[in-house]
């Protein structure tokens, strides 16, 4: 057991999998010699050699396409898209190819690919280093979508993703790479080393895909969140005195509907929190499912606390980011009636 930041935990997951399975390799822009702009692949080229961890051309389409070809061969490529905001040139290969190859070949060809990509705001990255495009992937049949919120989960989920035989889009909440974030940007950041979730086994272990975690137990209202927003939601619960049960979804597709339903049936109220713009964000699907499954238990409308329906504006970082004040407002509203 070691204490790891989320970056170190992710690096460790790659390290473990490169060591265990020679069909695993990893590449991406600046991911080779340099070890990635966020250092997640740091040291791996040195340890495993340049054919197992290498730099790619600046071509998200080419990265995804060659990964699909490698998957068809039988490898398990793990590719890094430098920022989720830059995944769109690779979108066609993800949506039309990786997601559909198993189906259209009746299982003969598969795409056991993991696409790692840092996402989300809170780092003054402006509109092209802050996006949360998860719902553009949850709509695509054939893809799994995973988002960790702690170092422990990050490693265990990434190993699961790599071992999974289906394509997994693995969003890394870059704001909490080095420590959790309550959303209070004016307060000093606590490093992961101060938290139990940073106790990470050095070897192989998995956190299963498709299973949510209860990040905070509570009885008043259920909060559905993932990534950075799990921490913001927990802070909001503490600060507001509203006894919220915060569910960390961890996997968006396939979704752990049972855990969600059990909680909402208990609390009768539900607030969904995400950074992505509201309209057609993943919160929409969650709201639709919760009302479908828990209609007769609901005592108030399901609330959504989200990013606005604008691009992510550089100077307005903290006006855009759905911080604790907005989450608390959402909780209060859910408790009102």
């Amino acid at each position, binding site marked *: 057991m070691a204490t790891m930041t989320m970056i170190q935990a992710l690096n460790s997951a790659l390290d473990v999998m490169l060591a265990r399975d020679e069909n695993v390799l990893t590449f991406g822009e600046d991911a080779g010699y340099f070890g990635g702009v966020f250092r997640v692949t740091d040291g791996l080229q040195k340890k495993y050699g340049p054919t197992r961890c290498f730099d790619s051309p600046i071509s998200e389409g080419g990265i995804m396409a*060659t990964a699909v070809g490698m998957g068809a*061969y039988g*490898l398990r490529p793990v590719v890094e898209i430098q920022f989720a905001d830059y995944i769109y*040139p690779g979108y066609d290969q993800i949506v039309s190819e990786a997601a559909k190859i198993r*189906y259209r070949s009746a299982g003969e060809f598969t795409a056991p690919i993991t696409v790692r990509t840092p996402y989300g705001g809170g780092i003054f990255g402006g509109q092209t280093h802050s996006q949360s495009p998860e719902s553009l992937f949850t709509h695509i049949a*054939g893809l799994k979508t995973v988002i960790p919120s702690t170092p422990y989960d990050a490693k265990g989920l990434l190993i699961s993703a790599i071992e999974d035989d289906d394509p997994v889009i693995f969003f890394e909440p870059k704001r909490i790479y080095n420590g959790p974030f309550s959303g209070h940007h004016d307060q000093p950041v606590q490093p992961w080393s101060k938290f139990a979730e940073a106790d990470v086994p050095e070897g192989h272990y998995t956190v299963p895909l498709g299973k949510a975690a209860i990040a905070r137990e509570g009885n008043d209202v259920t909060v559905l969140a993932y990534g950075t927003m799990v921490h913001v939601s927990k802070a909001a619960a503490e600060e507001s005195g509203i006894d919220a049960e915060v569910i960390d979804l961890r996997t968006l597709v396939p979704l752990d509907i049972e855990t969600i339903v059990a909680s909402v049936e208990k609390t009768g109220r539900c607030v969904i929190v995400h950074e992505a713009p509201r309209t057609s964000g993943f919160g929409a699907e969650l709201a639709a499912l919760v009302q479908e499954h828990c209609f007769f238990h609901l005592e108030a409308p399901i609330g959504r606390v989200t990013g606005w329906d604008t691009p992510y504006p550089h100077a307005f970082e903290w006006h855009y980011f759905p911080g604790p004040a907005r989450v608390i407002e959402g909780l209060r509203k859910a408790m009102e009636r």
Partner: protein
Amino acid sequence: MSSPELKKNRPSLSLRIPQPKSRPGDTPDFSNLIIPDAGAAPRPDIAAHPREMMNLAWSLIRVLDSKGRAVGPWDPRLNPETLRRALNHMLLVRAFDDRMYRAQRQGKTSFYMKCTGEEAIAVAQAYALDRNDMCFPSYRQQGLLIARGYPLVDMMNQIYSNAQDPVKGRQLPIMYSTKEYGFFSISGNLGTQFPQAVGWAMASAYKGDDRIAAGWIGDGTTAEGDFHYACNFASVYRAPVILNVVNNQWAISSFQGIAGGEESTFAARGIGYGLPSLRVDGNDFLAVYAATAWAAERARANLGATLIELYSYRAEGHSTSDDPARYRPADEPRCWPLGDPIERMKQHLMALGEWDEARHEAAQKEAVEQVRAANAEATANGTLGEGKIPSVKTMFEDVYKDVPWHLRRQRQQMGV
């Protein structure tokens, strides 16, 4: 305002929209086509530097001359037995196309696409590749499957989306997939297979395997980003792959000038990536074979990828949904100066004294008969037209390796 001044009084600009030489009602015009003599193109060593062989991108590798003789350094010197087998395969492809086209017209399926006039390409390339090399085809390389001996009835089962369809009714007709025959699942999304071929080849090289990959793309589709990704990644990682551009002059209703084919050749696109780039008479079986074999040797020798433009002509409609007489002269196919690949192979074998009209007729009949028999078997398995399709339950399978809860529920909702 500072230094950079206004420079006035220029002629006004105008937008150029490329136009083909002839349209319906016009006389087909191929007078501007420069067709180098057979045997004229030099054959470089596979280890030569790509820049030294650059002219091949604007030339045309041809082996069969106008009398059907094989000439020049690219003559692959195949034995008559192989040539005859190859001719039979081309005849089989054509017979298959004809039968399936009619099946669509009869309402037995929704769609079909022929490769008429392009049979030499896929068949010769199948011959030049190893049986275990991996193909990433577009939808016009049915010849690969036929030359590799994939059962015709399986092709038809796919086309009919019937209970024996290897891909369980999930794909449009002709979107074959067979790992066993080294044929990657065809995509309806144009071009995506081209860089995938490169990825597969990179994987093969990564594993120290000895199999290479080949990808095919149409002239029109070279405009997609995927073409660029393929060339670039193949060049950077020196992937053991053959990148084939099938220039059949047309992309549905758009002539190749709309893809940039008038400004240079498609082969020349490879030069900027440092790839050896060959332009080949695609209706000349021997030339296609020889160029492909050369590129394959190069790939196997860890020298990397080759771009090959196969210069040909789409002799029929784009698909069963298309009527080419609406956008090109109806007799243009007949005027295509590079002829018909089957006729040229026949002429060659006859020039060698290894074939005659009677044998040709018999071979044609035999091909038709093979196809007929396969079709009888396939239609007995059902056709989409009759509504005989795979079990509906299978519709929810293979989206993921295991069926997740939400798809299980949807399947229940369907009552299957």
